[in-house]
Structures are given as structure tokens and as C-alpha cells.
């Protein structure tokens, strides 16, 4: 019995509050200058950070750039972060801002350099099937914000409030963007699917 209790206590699954406490300790260590602690934070959050960036920018390469920029911004701003706040939410807002900055820069560059061409919006390495190609095309018909909102919500599972915080828009706007994005995509894909 004692052995069972010992095993139970020593092998218990980490609870969310444990994870939060661990993350807080990592943040504090990183704020005190520990590179290893910051690396651990990068390891923990980079996949989710990539998903946020990828929802906002147009290509995988831009998402990579935005993730790197975002982590650099986060590193520089780490002293101003209050460790009692959720680190993820703070970090993803930074990621979203880095992505929005990159999108703006790309738009300016494209307007300057390629006025008559429309860039292919999505990396599409092995795309052979018609549905995916036309899905890509349908997504280009949405506004940048609608596309970001629908991906962040329907694929990544962020709430309207979280999306609003990341994109700097009210929660209600995120909700209505999602509604319009869904309606547009439904309409566009209805045509696609009837063709297939």
C-alpha cells in the first residue's frame, strides 16, 4: 500500500497548474539572463507560434521569418513581461504583430515591385489534387483578416477573444469576421465541389 502510494505520488501526471508554475519559473530564469530557460520556452511554444504566424502570413517561409522575429521581439521585451500573466497569450500576440508587420511590408514591396502580378498565396509543394488547389484559390478570395480569423478559430482552436487580442480587433469583430469568412468560403467551395 505504501509502495503504491509512493509510486502514485512520484509518477503523477503534471497538472496544468504545475505546468504554469514551471513556465513561470522558466520565464523568471530567462528574465534573469538564462539562455537555456529561454530556449526551453522556444521549444515549448514554437509550434503554436508557427501556427499563429502561418494563419496570418501567406507562405510557410514568411511564417518561419515571423516566428523568428516574434521570438526576438519577445526576448527583447521579456523584462517588461509580468511572470504572473499567461506567457503563451503574451507571446502569441507578439507573434501575430510580427506576422501583421511582415504582411504589411510584403504588400508595400509587392506594390512597389510587382504592380501587375498577384503572388501565389500559399506554399504548395506536393499539391496535385484539384480540391486543394481550388481551396487555395477560394481562400485568396477572403480578406487577410477573414482568412486569419477562420484559420485561427477553425483550425487552431483559438477563441474569439484570443483572436481579437492577437489581431488587435474587438471580440465582436472577430466573431463577425468569422461569420462572413465561413459564408464566403461555403459559397466558393460549393461551386468547387459541384465541379469535382
Amino acid at each position, binding site marked *: 500500500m505504501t509502495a503504491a502510494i509512493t509510486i502514485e505520488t512520484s509518477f503523477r501526471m503534471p497538472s496544468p497548474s504545475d505546468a504554469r508554475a514551471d513556465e513561470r519559473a522558466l520565464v523568471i530564469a530567462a528574465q534573469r539572463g538564462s539562455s537555456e530557460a529561454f530556449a526551453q520556452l522556444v521549444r515549448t511554444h*514554437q509550434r503554436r507560434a*508557427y501556427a499563429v504566424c502561418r494563419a496570418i502570413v501567406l507562405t510557410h517561409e514568411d511564417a518561419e521569418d515571423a516566428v*523568428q522575429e516574434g521570438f526576438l521581439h519577445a526576448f527583447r521585451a521579456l523584462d517588461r513581461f509580468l511572470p504572473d500573466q499567461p506567457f503563451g497569450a503574451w507571446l502569441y500576440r507578439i507573434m501575430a504583430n510580427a506576422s501583421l508587420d511582415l504582411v504589411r511590408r510584403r504588400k508595400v514591396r509587392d506594390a512597389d515591385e510587382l504592380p501587375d502580378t498577384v503572388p501565389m498565396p500559399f506554399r504548395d509543394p506536393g499539391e496535385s489534387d484539384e480540391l486543394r488547389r481550388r*481551396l487555395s484559390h477560394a481562400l485568396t478570395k477572403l480578406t487577410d483578416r477573414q482568412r486569419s480569423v477562420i484559420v485561427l*478559430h*477553425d483550425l487552431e482552436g483559438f477563441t474569439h477573444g484570443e483572436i481579437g487580442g492577437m489581431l488587435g480587433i474587438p471580440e465582436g469583430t472577430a466573431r463577425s469576421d468569422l461569420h462572413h469568412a465561413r459564408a464566403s468560403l461555403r459559397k466558393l*467551395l460549393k461551386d468547387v465541389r459541384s465541379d469535382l
Partner: protein
Amino acid sequence: MSDIRLFSNDDDEVVRGLRSLYAAPSADGYWNELEARIMSRVADVELGWWTELDRWIRPALAAAAVLLVAAGVAMFRAHQTEAEIASESMLSSPAVPVSTAIRPALQDDREARIRFLFGR
């Protein structure tokens, strides 16, 4: 998270298409490499501070040395000037006795009082 989804279950294919368009790379090697790139840029930022500091150290030390020499010279000159003024004031002291020069009126009063007392 909302439970209202874009597509019904019949549209799994479309959802899969969307997911594949936005899929993050799955290979661990990719993420290790990305982490290494991020940390390398972070190290550059840290190094940047030190490099910047290092760049300023030599001019700052030179400026501090110049200031120290200037302050030393100024203090020496001030001390020398004080000594010169003191010696000049010693050499050019008045011929009249100090007591007479300071309070002649007081001396007169005292004499007057003594004369007054002894004269009574």
C-alpha cells in the same frame, strides 16, 4: 473554443485540405533547426549589447583618463594660486599694529573708562 465548425462531417475532405494547406512541418529535425536559428539570433542580440558596450569602453576609459588629468591639473593650479595669495598677503601686511587698526575706538573707550574710574 466555439463548437460551431465551418464544415459538416461530410466535408472532412475539405477540412483535411485546409489542414494540409496550413500544416506545420512535423519532423523533429525541422523544429530543432528552427530553435537553433532562433537561439542563434537571440545570442546575436545578447552579443550585440556586449559588442556595443565593448565599442564604448575604450573611448570611455580614454575620456575618463583625460578628465582625471584635467581635474588634477586644475586642483594643482588652484592650490598654487591659494599659496601665492597667502604668501602675498603675508608680505603685504599693514605697518600699523593689528590691535590698533582693528578697534581704535574700543581702545579709546576703555582708556576713557579707566580714566573716569581712577579720576573719581
